[in-house]
C-alpha cells in the first residue's frame, strides 16, 4: 500500500442533511480515471475487505501496477474489460461523506465510446476531467470537454494527475491549467476548479498533500463536496411531464409525474401545453403526503380544480411561460448506432413522456468534436455529433436544452431493431414550423372527393425491378378511367427526369426520393384523386414513413411479388445484366437488399396469374374498401 498514514478507514455517518452529487470522470485512455475512482472509494471506505481481497487476487492476475492493488480492476466489471484492461461501458459507483453522497459515472476514454461518455454525462451535474501531467492536454481532453459542454455540464474540475511523475512541479501544473482555461473560453462552463493530484499515491485526493506545499486550493474530495449541484434547476419555469393518470375512483383524478423545472404551488394556475386549457392546483400529493408546494425533481401527483383533458405525454406548465409546441426543431444530435443516420428515414422520438414518429429532415453540418468547427456531412456515423433539423409526426412540447435539460432532450429509437439510435438536445424550434401555421382551406379533401364520387387514396406498388408493377398499375388506371374515376400515376423513372433529377441511387438519395414521392402523392390525394405509385421502394422503414403521412385507410400497400430469378430472366430494361456486370452500383436484388412488406394490403404473385386478372384484384380491393362509388 502507498503512504497511507492519512488514510481513514472510518466510514462516514450519513447525516440528516446529506445532499447528492452526480459527476462523471473523463479524460484520455491512460490518464488514470479508474484509478482515481478506486482511490476515492478506498479512502472513503466504500470498498470492503472481501472486495479488496478479490481485488488483490485480480491485481496479481490482470493488474498493471506490479504488486500494488490496481484500483481500476474494481471498476471494470465485465469479463472482457478485465481481460483487455480497458473500460468498455459506463460504470456507476457510489461513495459518501458526511456532507454528500456521490454517484460517479466512470466513462471510457476510447474514441469509439463517445456515446458512452455522453450517456454518463447526461445525468451528471459536474465532471472531473483528468489530464496526465506529463502529456498535458490531448485531443481526448478537448473532445470530452466539448461533449460535457454540449450535454449541459456547467461545473468542471480539472484534475492534473500523475503530478508525482513530474516531480510535483508547480510550473508544469500552472502551464496546463492556463492552457485549459484558454481552451475552455469557447465552452459553456460556469466554473472550472483545478487540482494537482496523484490518484495512485493519494496526493490531494482526500487530504492536502505535503508534497505540493505551493498548492493553496482544496483537495479533490473537498472541492466536490463544495460544488453547487442543483441551484439552476429550481429557478426554471414550472414543467410537469405527465407520466400517468391515477384514478382509483370517481372522487380522485390525479396526474402523476416528476417535476422537470420550477416550483409547483397549491392554488397556482397551470396550463396544458397542447390544448392551452387552464386549471388551478387543488392538491399536491407527494411521497410524504399532501404538500403546499413541491419543487424540481420531486415525484408528485397533482389534482386540478376542474376536469380538463390531460393524458400521458402532456406537459403541465406555467401559464405565462409555456413550452414551445411545434413539429419542427433544430438540435444537436449524437449518433449511436452502427448504421449511419440518413435524412428522411423514420425513427421513434421520445421526449419527456411522449413517443412520436420523427424524421431528420436535414443534416446541417457535423461538429468536429476536437475544435467545435462545422464540417459538411450527408450522413452521421456512429459517435458523430451533428446539427440537424427534425420533424415530428405530431406536435410536441419542448424547451431549448440550454433552458431545461429535462424538456429539451430526446432520444431516437430505431423502428426495426428498437435500439436507441441517437440522442439529441434541442437548440430551438424552427421558425417555419412556429410561424407558418397551416392554412385552413375552405374547400377541403372531402369536398373535392365527393364531387368525384370517390374516396381518394394512394395505391403503392412495391417490388423488384421487372416484377410487373407498372404493367399492372397501367391496367388498373385504364379500368378506373374507363369507369369515370379520377386517377394519377406517379412513375419512378418519370419523376427522376424532373422533380428528382438531382438525386442518385445512394441509400440517402433513395430515402429522399421516396419522401418526395410520398409528399406529392399526399397532395394529389388532397386533390381527391386515386394515386397509383410504382416504386421499387426497397426499405420497409421508408414505405412506413410514407404511410404515416396519410390518414388511416388512405394508403394501400400492394406487394408485386415475383422471384428474383424471374425478374432477371424478364429484364425488360436490360438493367439486371448491367448490374450483374457491375456497371450499376446499389441495384436492388443484386447489390442492394429488398425488404418485402410484412403486412401488405394485397399481394400479387405475377407468376400465378395474368396481369389482367391481377389488375382486377386491385380494383376489387378498392371496391371492398369503399373507395369507388358507382352511380
Amino acid at each position, binding site marked *: 500500500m502507498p503512504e497511507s498514514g492519512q488514510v481513514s478507514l472510518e466510514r462516514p455517518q450519513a447525516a440528516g442533511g446529506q445532499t447528492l452529487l452526480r459527476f462523471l470522470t473523463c479524460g484520455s485512455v491512460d490518464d488514470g480515471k479508474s484509478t482515481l475512482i478506486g482511490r476515492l472509494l478506498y479512502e472513503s471506505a466504500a470498498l470492503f475487505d472481501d472486495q479488496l481481497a478479490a481485488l488483490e487476487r485480480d491485481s496479481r492476475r490482470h493488474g498493471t501496477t506490479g504488486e500494488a492493488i490496481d484500483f481500476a480492476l474494481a471498476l471494470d466489471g465485465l469479463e472482457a474489460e478485465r481481460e483487455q484492461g480497458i473500460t468498455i*461501458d459506463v460504470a456507476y459507483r457510489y461513495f459518501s461523506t458526511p456532507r454528500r453522497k456521490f454517484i460517479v459515472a466512470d466513462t471510457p476514454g476510447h474514441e469509439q465510446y463517445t456515446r458512452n461518455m455522453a450517456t454518463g454525462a447526461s445525468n451528471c451535474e459536474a465532471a472531473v476531467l483528468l489530464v496526465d501531467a506529463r502529456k498535458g492536454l490531448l485531443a481526448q481532453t478537448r473532445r470530452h470537454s466539448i461533449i460535457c459542454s454540449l450535454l449541459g455540464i456547467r461545473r468542471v474540475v480539472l484534475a492534473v494527475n500523475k503530478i508525482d511523475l513530474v516531480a510535483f512541479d508547480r510550473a508544469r501544473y500552472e502551464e496546463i491549467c492556463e492552457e485549459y482555461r484558454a481552451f475552455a473560453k469557447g465552452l459553456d462552463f460556469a466554473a472550472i476548479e483545478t487540482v494537482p493530484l496523484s490518484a495512485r499515491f493519494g496526493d490531494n485526493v482526500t487530504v492536502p498533500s505535503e508534497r505540493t506545499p505551493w498548492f493553496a486550493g482544496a483537495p479533490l474530495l473537498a472541492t466536490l463536496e463544495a460544488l453547487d449541484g442543483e441551484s439552476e434547476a429550481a429557478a426554471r419555469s414550472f414543467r410537469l411531464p405527465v407520466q400517468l393518470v391515477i384514478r382509483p375512483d370517481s372522487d380522485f383524478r390525479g396526474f402523476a409525474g416528476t417535476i422537470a423545472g420550477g416550483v409547483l404551488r397549491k392554488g397556482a394556475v397551470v396550463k396544458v401545453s397542447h390544448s392551452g386549457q387552464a386549471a388551478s392546483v387543488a392538491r399536491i400529493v407527494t411521497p410524504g403526503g399532501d404538500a403546499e408546494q413541491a419543487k424540481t425533481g420531486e415525484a408528485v401527483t397533482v389534482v386540478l380544480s376542474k376536469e380538463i383533458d390531460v393524458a400521458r405525454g402532456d406537459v403541465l406548465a406555467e401559464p405565462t411561460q409555456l413550452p414551445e409546441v411545434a413539429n419542427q426543431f433544430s438540435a444537436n444530435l449524437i449518433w449511436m448506432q452502427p448504421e449511419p443516420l440518413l435524412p428522411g428515414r423514420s425513427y421513434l422520438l421520445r421526449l419527456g413522456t411522449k413517443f412520436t414518429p420523427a424524421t431528420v429532415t436535414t443534416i446541417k453540418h457535423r461538429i468536429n468534436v476536437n475544435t467545435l468547427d462545422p464540417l459538411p456531412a450527408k450522413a452521421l456515423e456512429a459517435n458523430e455529433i451533428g446539427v440537424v433539423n427534425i420533424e415530428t409526426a405530431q406536435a410536441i412540447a419542448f424547451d431549448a436544452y440550454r433552458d431545461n435539460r429535462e424538456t429539451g432532450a430526446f432520444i431516437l429509437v430505431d423502428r426495426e431493431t428498437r435500439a436507441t439510435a441517437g440522442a439529441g438536445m434541442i437548440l430551438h424550434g424552427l421558425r417555419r414550423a412556429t410561424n407558418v401555421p397551416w392554412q385552413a382551406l375552405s374547400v377541403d379533401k372531402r369536398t373535392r372527393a365527393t364531387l368525384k364520387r370517390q374516396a381518394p387514396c394512394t395505391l403503392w406498388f412495391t417490388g423488384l425491378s421487372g416484377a410487373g408493377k407498372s404493367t399492372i398499375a397501367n391496367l388498373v388506371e385504364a379500368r378506373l378511367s374507363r369507369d369515370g374515376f379520377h386517377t394519377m400515376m406517379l412513375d419512378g423513372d418519370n419523376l427522376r427526369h424532373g422533380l428528382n433529377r438531382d438525386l442518385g441511387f445512394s441509400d440517402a438519395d433513395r430515402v429522399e426520393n421516396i419522401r418526395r414521392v410520398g409528399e406529392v402523392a399526399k397532395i394529389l390525394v388532397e386533390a381527391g384523386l386515386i394515386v397509383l405509385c410504382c416504386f421499387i421502394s426497397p426499405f420497409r422503414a421508408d414505405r412506413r414513413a410514407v404511410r404515416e403521412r396519410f390518414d388511416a385507410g388512405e394508403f394501400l400497400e400492394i406487394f408485386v411479388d415475383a422471384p428474383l430469378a424471374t425478374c432477371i430472366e424478364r429484364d425488360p430494361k436490360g438493367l439486371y445484366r448491367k448490374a450483374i456486370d457491375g456497371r450499376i452500383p446499389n441495384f436492388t436484388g443484386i447489390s442492394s437488399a429488398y425488404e418485402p412488406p410484412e403486412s401488405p394490403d394485397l399481394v400479387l404473385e405475377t407468376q400465378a396469374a395474368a396481369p389482367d386478372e391481377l389488375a382486377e384484384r386491385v380494383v376489387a380491393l378498392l371496391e371492398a374498401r369503399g373507395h369507388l362509388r358507382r352511380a
Partner: protein
Amino acid sequence: MNALSPTLRRLEAEAIHIIREAAAEFRKPVLLYSIGKDSSVLLHLALKAFRPGRLPFPLLHVDTTWKFKDMIRFRDDTARRLGLDLIVHVNADGLARGIGPVASGSSLHTQVMKTEALRQALDRHGFDAALGGARRDEERSRAKERVFSFRSAGHVWDPRTQRPELWRLFNTRLGPGESMRVFPLSNWTEIDVWHYVAAENIPVVPLYFAARRPVVERDGAMILRDDDRLPLLPGETPALKSVRFRTLGCYPLTGAIESEAATVEDIIAEMLRSRNSERQGRVIDRDETASMERKKREGYF
C-alpha cells in the same frame, strides 16, 4: 419517523419515477418480490407511486422451497396486510427431479430453482416487464447494468449490446418475446436502504435482527439449520449464537454474521463499522470470479 435527507428524497423520487414509467409503458408488468429488505423498500415505493390508487400490477415470488420459514411467514403476512395480488411460483419439474441445495449443490440448485423457475413464471403469465430490487453497488457486473435492462427472447442479457440510457428517457420498446427487467433501486446503496427503512418505518423480516439462533459452521459460513432437510455432518452440533443476516436467500446457502444489532439503528451503526460487503455471506457468488455476470446472462435476477 425521521425526516428524509435530501439524498434519500432524491433517490425516492427517482425510484417512483421509474416505477411509474414501467406501469405506463408495459403491457403486463410484475414486481419481483424476494422478501428481503430491498424488496420491502421496493414494495413500499411502488405503493407510494400510485397512491391513493392501488398497485396496478401483481407481485411474483419465485419460491425455491428452501427459503427460511420466517421469510415465508413474513411474505404471507405482508400480502394479507396490504391486500396484494401475490403469485408464488415453484419449479415443479425441478422439485420432482429432487433438485435442492443439499442434494445438487448451490450452482445447479440456483440454476434450476431460481433462474429457470423465474423464466417459467414470466413466460407462463406473459409478463413483459419485471421490476426488481437489485442495486448497482451489490456486485461489479451490476454496476454496468441499465435501469431498464433489455432481455432478448429467451430472457438473455447481453452486456455488450445494452441500450445506452440517457437522461430519464428510457427506451421501453420491445419486440415479440422480448422483455425488460426494471431496477428502480439502481442508485441506492445498502446503507441508503437501511436509512430509508428506518426513516419510513418499513417492516422487514426478523432474521435481519440479531437473536440467539442455533448455527453450525460450515466452509467458513455460519449456517442456520432451519429444518431437518439439512443433515448434520459427523461432529457438527448446532451452537446457540447471537447472529443476524445481511442478506436473505436459501437457508443452506446463506451465512449469518455474529452480531448484537437488534434494531435498525443498531444495524446502521454496525454497518458503518463493518469491513465486509453484504454479498460476502452468499455462497453462490464465490463459485468463480465472474459468476454473477454469467448467471445474469442466463436470466438470473
